[in-house]
């Protein structure tokens, strides 16, 4: 197990894992899209516009999941000085920012026909927008500091402070009774008796798993690039570069 903690071994292992993860992601996404667009029924009030939920809600889950993962990895990097954890945090930020942006844009495209507005300063919407700024701030901070160790440390502090926003996003629909509706699936323990029909629950869960696999695929791809850059003076990278072309 610990042999993979060396950047060199991790680089090789990630290179072997990525094609399998990519295939699994593609298969699940195809199945999820089929379920979302063809199998799931139109809503009796919202009509076909309800299909936006199968992108919007899994993306929103991912925006939180990736943030917790990123902050956790950054924290581990900060405390135990583990290079791979720092690199995972760094690789996660643009993916998390992407899911947050998708959440906001698809929410807007859903809000316009259903609420009659593209945007409102509702608690859920505003806290999700703050999440986007946290991701962008983390990325900007990493890019602004040349020394990778210092960049990782500064980023970790920002990411960890930003964790307070996560419960705010989660509970915002309960704490402030504004525009956004409460969660449809509130916890894993309720999955046995959820308040939504299986024809909607299945595509939601399949898309969520597909997005999770997608996240790990792209994170590993980004980590490989980061490893090469961080280890550019090590012998194995020099040898790899010498034989690569």
């Amino acid at each position, binding site marked *: 197990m610990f042999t993979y903690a060396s950047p060199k071994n991790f680089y090789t292992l990630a290179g072997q894992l990525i094609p399998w993860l990519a295939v699994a992601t593609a298969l699940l996404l195809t199945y999820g899209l089929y379920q979302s667009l063809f199998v799931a029924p*139109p809503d009796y009030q919202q009509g*076909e*516009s309800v299909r936006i939920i199968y992108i919007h809600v899994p993306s929103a889950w991912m925006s939180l999941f990736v943030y917790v993962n990123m902050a956790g990895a950054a924290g581990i990097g900060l405390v135990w000085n583990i290079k791979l954890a720092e690199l995972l945090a760094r690789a996660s930020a643009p993916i998390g920012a*992407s899911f947050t942006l998708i959440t906001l*844009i*698809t929410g807007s495209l*859903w809000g316009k026909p259903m609420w009659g507005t593209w945007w409102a300063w509702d608690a859920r919407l505003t806290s999700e927008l703050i999440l986007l700024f946290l991701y962008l701030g983390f990325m900007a901070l990493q890019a602004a500091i040349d020394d990778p160790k210092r960049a990782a440390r500064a980023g970790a502090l920002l990411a960890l402070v930003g964790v307070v926003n996560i419960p705010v996003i989660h509970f915002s629909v309960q704490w402030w009774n504004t525009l956004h509706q409460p969660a449809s699936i509130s916890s894993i323990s309720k999955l046995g008796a959820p308040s939504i029909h299986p024809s909607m629950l299945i595509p939601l869960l399949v898309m969520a798993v597909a997005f999770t696999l997608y996240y790990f*695929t*792209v994170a590993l791809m*980004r980590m490989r690039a980061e490893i090469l850059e961080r280890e550019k003076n090590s012998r194995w990278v020099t040898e790899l570069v010498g034989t690569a072309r």
Partner: protein
Amino acid sequence: MSWADFFAMGGYAGYVWGAYGFAAVVLLANILGAARRRQAVLRLLHDYTKLHEADSE
């Protein structure tokens, strides 16, 4: 249901396909960006190594 009905999305075509399309573009861009970044790093390191070799000859 015909394909035309399917694409019309009960009158919500712009919103539904806009949402799915935007997500697809962003997710694809992430994959391309990640792949391209590793290639760029490799190319940079390769040029750097060649320069270094030319120096020491």
